[in-house]
């Protein structure tokens, strides 16, 4: 039953933990030693990685430090300080933080309710399966779905207007910071559920029973045992969700066009038509995105490695 759902969990979430998987040495390798043929088997993979992952990214990083004539300069990075670019970074970071925090909290609560809430059999696997689908349901179609729901003619908007509550008159706008955050939660919450589920499974029943035997209330259990154990996982997942939202563009583009100037949309416009009138500045913008996304991921990997201890 639940094993099927867990397959989806593993397929989707597992890459995120790839970096901390223990390296298992095969005995044959030690016996036979390495031959040229072995490297030949790995070569296509490494060549691909160099040509289509590492060099293109490095090229942009170098480009960020190059003036138009190719000489070294820091001017591109200094030029990032225009109000337009600063505000786009600021709104990107705000949307990413808000959707990551909301997604993490809602996802944690949902996962706890489903896994430890003694709900009927089947709900757990249904929720995990659905999370697998919803966490991949991003991009353009997600924007369409939310326009059909909370747009000016959306089902919920129209329904609430019929009972006398106009959300748009009350200040809500789908094409705004909160609209985008609410939309991003549609893939952030399921991702949180998928990532945190194994950690919640790792909270052994015996711990809460032991705590209860010692006279702890459920609140005390969560305060002194549950949350401290989940904490590293929570923080790690938070940075992963942040990176996830920070790099996303298609949903925002289809939802708001260019009315909400998040960094990826600004970069998209720059690649399309050099709107910043400076190729070096485009590369600097990319560098800014790489640095922020990489920082968030490094935080995730470091915390996750430390959190693994509790799941053994």
């Amino acid at each position, binding site marked *: 039953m639940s094993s099927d759902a867990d*397959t*989806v969990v593993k*397929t*989707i979430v*597992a*890459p995120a933990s*790839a970096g901390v998987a223990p390296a298992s040495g*095969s*005995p*044959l390798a030690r016996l036979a030693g*390495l031959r040229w043929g072995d*490297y030949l*088997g790995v070569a296509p*993979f*490494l060549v*691909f990685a160099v040509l*289509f*992952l*590492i*060099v*293109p*990214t490095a*090229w942009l990083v170098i480009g960020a430090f190059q003036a138009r004539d190719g000489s070294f300069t820091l001017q591109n990075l200094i030029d990032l300080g225009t109000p337009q670019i600063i505000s786009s970074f600021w709104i990107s970071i705000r949307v990413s933080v808000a959707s990551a925090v909301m997604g993490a909290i*809602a996802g944690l*609560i949902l996962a706890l309710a*489903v896994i430890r*809430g*003694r709900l009927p059999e089947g709900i757990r696997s249904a*929720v995990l399966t659905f999370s697998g*689908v*919803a966490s*991949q*349901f991003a*991009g*353009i*179609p997600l924007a*369409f*779905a*939310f*326009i*059909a*729901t909370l747009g000016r*003619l*959306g089902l*919920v908007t129209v329904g609430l207007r019929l009972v006398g509550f106009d959300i748009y008159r009350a200040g809500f706008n789908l094409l705004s910071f909160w609209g985008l955050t609410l939309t991003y939660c*549609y893939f952030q*919450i399921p991702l949180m559920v998928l990532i945190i589920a194994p950690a919640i499974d790792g909270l052994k029943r015996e711990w809460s029973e032991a705590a209860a035997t010692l006279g702890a209330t459920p609140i005390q259990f969560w305060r002194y045992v549950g949350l401290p154990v989940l904490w590293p996982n929570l923080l790690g997942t938070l940075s992963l969700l942040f990176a996830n939202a920070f*790099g996303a*563009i*298609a949903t925002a*583009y*289809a939802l708001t*066009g260019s009315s909400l100037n998040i960094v*990826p949309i600004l970069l*998209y416009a720059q*690649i*399309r038509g050099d709107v910043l009138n400076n190729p070096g500045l485009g590369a600097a913008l*990319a560098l800014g995105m790489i640095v922020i*996304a990489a920082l968030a*991921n490094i935080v995730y990997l470091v915390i996750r490695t430390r959190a693994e201890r509790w799941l053994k």
Partner: protein
Amino acid sequence: MTRAKFWSWVIFILGALYFLGPLLATVQFSLSIRRTGYSLDAYTNVLQSPAFQQTFTYSLLVGVAAIIVGLLIVVPAAYFVRLRAPQLRPIIEFVTLLPLIIPPIILVFGYIRLYNSSSILPLTNSDWGTNILLTLAYVALALPYMYRAVDTGLRTIDVQTLTEAANILGASTPTILIRVIFPNIIVAALSGAFLTLAIVIGEFTIASLLNRQAFGVYMQNVGANRAFEPAALAVISFVITWAAMGAIQLLARFAPKTQRI
């Protein structure tokens, strides 16, 4: 009913409302193209439009090509890392994490700068070159999932014994890979393939910036110009994603496992 159980139900129902609400609304919206009553006109408009058929076929082909290329580079690498070169594992796993760290828009920006018409490898010069570049971009996007799926598949079979047995029977390494290892991990490879398809079929950013007439670009166009058809497209996309995920679950039941004695 205990209090904890009551709150679990409340949370579950709130979650269901948030997640099923937009789906219901989208279905309802996609059926409301006529002023009175429901109709499937939005779907027929979309499905019969030549642009839909062309872009969808194109994205499907690119997706299949990306899966094939992905398997060709991932299977040998994962096999050799598992069997003979475990010391390379940290490098390979770091590489498989890169596509999760580098946002797609950065990747395609790098491609455009690196493989433009004045570079050593001017892929963006020709139509075919750009198609190849898009395929390789999708291989990169799917790399973490593909590698993980294949590696999981290899873990469930006894790679070492199978290889030794084939060696004794005189098989060469390519023969071992194609006729012994691959058939044994085909189920795992297929789940990686379906996930790849789910990721790339509606991909917008890379296809759009490489000027390819892909399904994601078509959807964005429809979204900018039509009212009800986008909802129909969203429903179709959701069904495709769901089918891909369902296929992965179904496949998991047929995974072969060799018993270790």
